[in-house]
């Protein structure tokens, strides 16, 4: 990516990722976190949780361990036979990137425990990807999507 057009498209992709983050965090202090109203440190300190549909869920969870020693993990039975609530949070105030990695790792851990595989989508067939601003922004958003959301 060097030419001027590439640079503009690169910016658009970056914008797509950021726009996605903003969609769920309209207050600037919450960007990358899961709250529109809380101060950044409060939102960042929340437990992120997935409910895994297994009542025999047990570690180790390599996807979570890979995030380093600052991560605290807990499990508890979910009500109504819905399996096990698996939660994790960082000590201190994590960066937006760390929270994103945590979301993605929790989602992968859940899939491995429930299905035994992490669903992939790339590479796959596609036609001509026209170099448009909107397209590049969307690619940025899609690339960022596994790490985003309200989790």
């Amino acid at each position, binding site marked *: 990516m060097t030419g001027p057009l590439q640079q503009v498209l690169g910016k658009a992709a970056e914008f797509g990722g950021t726009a996605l983050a903003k969609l769920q965090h309209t207050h600037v202090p919450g960007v990358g976190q899961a709250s529109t109203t809380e101060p950044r440190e409060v939102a960042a300190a929340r437990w992120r949780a997935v409910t895994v549909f297994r009542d025999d869920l047990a570690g180790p969870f390599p996807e979570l361990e890979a995030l380093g020693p600052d991560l605290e993990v807990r499990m508890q039975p979910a009500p109504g036979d819905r399996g096990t609530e698996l939660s994790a949070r960082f000590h201190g105030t994590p960066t937006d990137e760390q929270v994103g990695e945590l979301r993605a790792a929790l*989602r992968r851990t859940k899939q491995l425990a429930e299905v035994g595989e992490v*669903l992939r989508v790339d590479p*796959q067939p596609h036609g001509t990807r*026209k170099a448009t601003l909107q397209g590049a922004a969307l690619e940025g958003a899609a690339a960022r999507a596994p790490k*985003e*959301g*309200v989790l």
Partner: protein
Amino acid sequence: MKAAIWAGVNEVAVEEVDEPQLLNDHDVILKISKTVTCGSDLHLIGGYIPAMRAGDVLGHEFTGTVVERGKAVTKVQVGDRVVVPSFIACGHCWYCSQELYSLCDNGNPNPGITEGLWGQSPGGCFGYSHAMGGFAGSHAEYMRVPYADVGCFVVPDAVSDTRALFASDSVTTGWTGAHLGGTKPGDVVAVWGAGAVGQMAARAAILLGAEQVVVIDRLPERLAQVRQHIGAEAVDYSTTDVVAELRERTGGRGPDVCIEAVGMEAHSTGIQGAFDQVKQQLRLQTDRPSAVREAIRACRKGGSVFVLGVFAGPVDKFPLGAAMNKGLTVRGAQQHGQRYVPEILAHMESGALTTEHLATHTMPLSQAAEGYRIFKEKEDGCVRTVFEPGG
């Protein structure tokens, strides 16, 4: 291989693309025999759902033959002739255990987009934008199907491809609305929209025991199909006050179950027709819920309104007061196909459910752009255009 792609707003093209590969152990690759246009594609093609990338392969209603399978696939065999629901479900999460397959926790690898929009992410869907997972669709010679043991259903020998094809999306969607809308024997059911989805909702309601079923549309050829092939009553909303007509036909009560099968581009008098006015870009307020409003008004007290038509964002002037004071149940869903396909194939085999009349146009995949144009314009009585990649 050849595939029909979204090339930009209101632009469909056929291009040479790479063949799909097995990416997960639970995948199969299908050789597509038939694949068909759906009203949902029109929302995508018209740019109402802005998560399409130029080059994305379209299509989510299809039949095919298994040509390759991943090493964890156990039920489906190479050579099986199968039909596959359009929503991608893992079969193992809590939602799948509740048979709410389109809500699968694991079927969408891009959950951040829909979580951001809606607070939670539903499952993924073939050929339905990066918001729904970014999976390549079925308008191609070959296609990858993840979670194959959950999604692939073997078609009985006595059922033709043309009949089975619609068990992928239109019939399963109609079934979802009629069943989860709570249709009971003796009920009166009204359906807005006489496209394939609305017709199949009406047929499902009849098969679930409804005593009287009324379908509402304005296109004469579709209303004629409702009478001839579905066995339901038909009302033309362009010449009739629908709410008054339904009240009169139901002894003043209103229908017990109202199913909306129109969607975000609903046409209404006074506004330009939905297909004349294709917007270039989704603005979240542009979903047009005119049929939903009418359904809420017409529904009997304590009845249920089921939204099958696709909406993406907030809508204006939603009659919450009527819904609350009349004690209505308002529900919606993307189709939970995996729950209903076995029952649907059995009805197809017995002859109680026929769908061939929906396939008004059949053409080779190379003519996809023309096929979509005819479908969108409702030209020549088009209800669905079927593409044959081998044709």
